[in-house]
């Protein structure tokens, strides 16, 4: 609210300044150009405030609406981990993103490390970089269908958490590779020289010093990648599937209905919302979807706040050692 007031206030200020500018224009040309620069500056500032306020308001109202609808729909039964309860999808979402990061992070980091430190700047790297960029801008549904073809049809298997995780990794590996490469390239050259001068090999220098110095930025990349996973539906529809058959009393990862079994099919919150909205026939489809949406928003919120705090802690530890 105070943002909006500030915006309005500075706009009024801009108008006043515009008036002053008009009056000033009768004096020398030099003074005029200086005043008009000031006026433009004020107007621009005002415009930015208004635009920012508009988007904050938009975001706040959408979030509030979704949480409100979710709260209306909430019931102990829908919040549970059995039957229609969205607890199942909450677990699936977190677990699938976790599995996906397990693949994405090492592959992405190794790729970025290779591009930053070993690949040089030749033709081959240029091609690799173009491919990676193309990969990261592929439409999700294409990646989803590709994953279906490769991980499911070609392996003669069924929808599974693994297939979903791997497909999601296709989208996220380029992001992590890029983040890692940028982070490593921005590490000061003096760290590199210092380590080499102590008798470290290049590989030791890269892994012990450069990579360590890059961790805070790589974590930021991981947050973005996870966020993408939480919200993704198109990639997962045909890979991890649209249903779950789980028993939350069975934690043996090998049993077919165990929550931990990576080979079972699993619908995430986003996928559930999508399927309820397109083909839900149950009387309470609408309520379940509302609740799932609210939980998804909360999950994203908690996750980004948590990981940001973690990132800041790490950064602070590196810089001051607290």
């Amino acid at each position: 609210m105070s943002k909006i007031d500030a915006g309005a206030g500075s706009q009024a200020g801009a108008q006043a300044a515009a008036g002053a500018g008009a009056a000033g224009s009768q004096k020398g040309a030099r003074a005029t150009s200086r005043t008009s620069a000031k006026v433009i500056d004020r107007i621009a500032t005002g415009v930015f405030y208004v635009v920012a306020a508009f988007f904050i308001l938009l975001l706040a109202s959408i979030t509030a609406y979704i949480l409100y609808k979710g709260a209306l729909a909430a019931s102990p039964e829908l919040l549970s981990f059995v039957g229609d309860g969205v607890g199942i999808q909450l677990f699936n979402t977190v677990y699938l993103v976790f599995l996906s990061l397990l693949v994405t992070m090492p592959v992405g980091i190794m790729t970025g490390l290779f591009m930053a430190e070993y690949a040089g700047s030749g033709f081959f790297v240029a091609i690799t970089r173009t491919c990676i960029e193309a990969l990261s801008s592929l439409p999700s549904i294409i990646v989803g269908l590709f994953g279906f073809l490769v991980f499911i049809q070609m392996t003669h298997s069924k929808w599974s958490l693994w297939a979903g995780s791997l497909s999601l990794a296709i989208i996220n590996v380029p992001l992590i590779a890029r983040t890692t490469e940028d982070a490593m390239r921005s590490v000061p050259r003096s760290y590199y020289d210092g380590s080499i001068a102590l008798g470290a090999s290049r590989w030791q220098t890269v892994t012990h010093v450069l990579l360590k110095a890059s961790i805070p930025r790589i974590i930021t990349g991981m947050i973005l990648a996870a966020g993408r996973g939480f919200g993704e539906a198109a990639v997962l529809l045909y890979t991890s599937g649209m249903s779950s058959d789980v028993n939350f009393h069975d934690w043996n990862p090998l049993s077919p209905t165990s929550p931990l079994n990576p080979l079972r099919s699993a619908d995430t919150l986003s996928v559930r919302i999508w399927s309820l909205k397109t083909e839900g026939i149950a009387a309470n489809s609408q309520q379940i979807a509302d609740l799932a949406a609210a939980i998804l928003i909360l999950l994203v919120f908690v996750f980004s706040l948590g990981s940001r705090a973690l990132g800041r802690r790490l950064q602070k530890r590196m810089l001051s050692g607290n």
Partner: protein
Amino acid sequence: METETCVQTSALNLYYSDFQALRSVSLAIPRKHITALIGPSGCGKSSFLKVLNRMTDLIDHCRVEGQVLLADEDIYAAAVDPIMLRKRVGMVFQKPNPFPMSIYDNIAYGPRLHGQKGKHQLDEIVEKSLAAAALWEETKDRLKKSALSLSGGQQQRLSIARALAVEPELLLMDEPTSALDPISTGKIEELVFELKRSYTIIIVTHNMQQAVRISDMTGFFLLGELVEFANTNNMFTAPQDKRTEDYITGRFG
């Protein structure tokens, strides 16, 4: 009195592509003494240091000719591993460059690379190295804190301690005080002076008073050439070469 030679170069030439940065440099650095290298910017002092620990290997289009003997061993011989060489020849840079990790981990970095894993031994090395760099008292209660939380002068002493932790035979210092305030500079000079009991030190400096204060021998470089190499007192009181005299009396550079 005869002193032992630590490192000796003969007819050393260094080229960056076509540009010759060192011209037939021959000198013998005495063991457990401080040798200062002076000369105007761009005359090849840093290049000379980089030859001695083969940091020149990292520079594209850089070619070294001639011979460098460290304890009578040719360091450019095919059998020499540059990594093992750099363990024997430590280097401290112009700008302090602690790694973004704890004080302890900075010092333990080198010994760990070279296979030292024991917690007890590492603790000992860390204490010994920090003490040798006159930094132990200031840091013993905060070893787990980031090295980047230290002041510039402390960071430079940390860089020195880190180099000492691998027990080099020869310590190269490239203008180690040029980024520091006078008080920190004084502390580093004192420290360097102390270190010559156990180490051979080559220090590049822009500051001629500094060379006079701490060094036993001084080499004067000009345009890639070693113009004069002599006992520091002799060099500054009775330079043999006209160009040395012009430089130390401030007539150019």
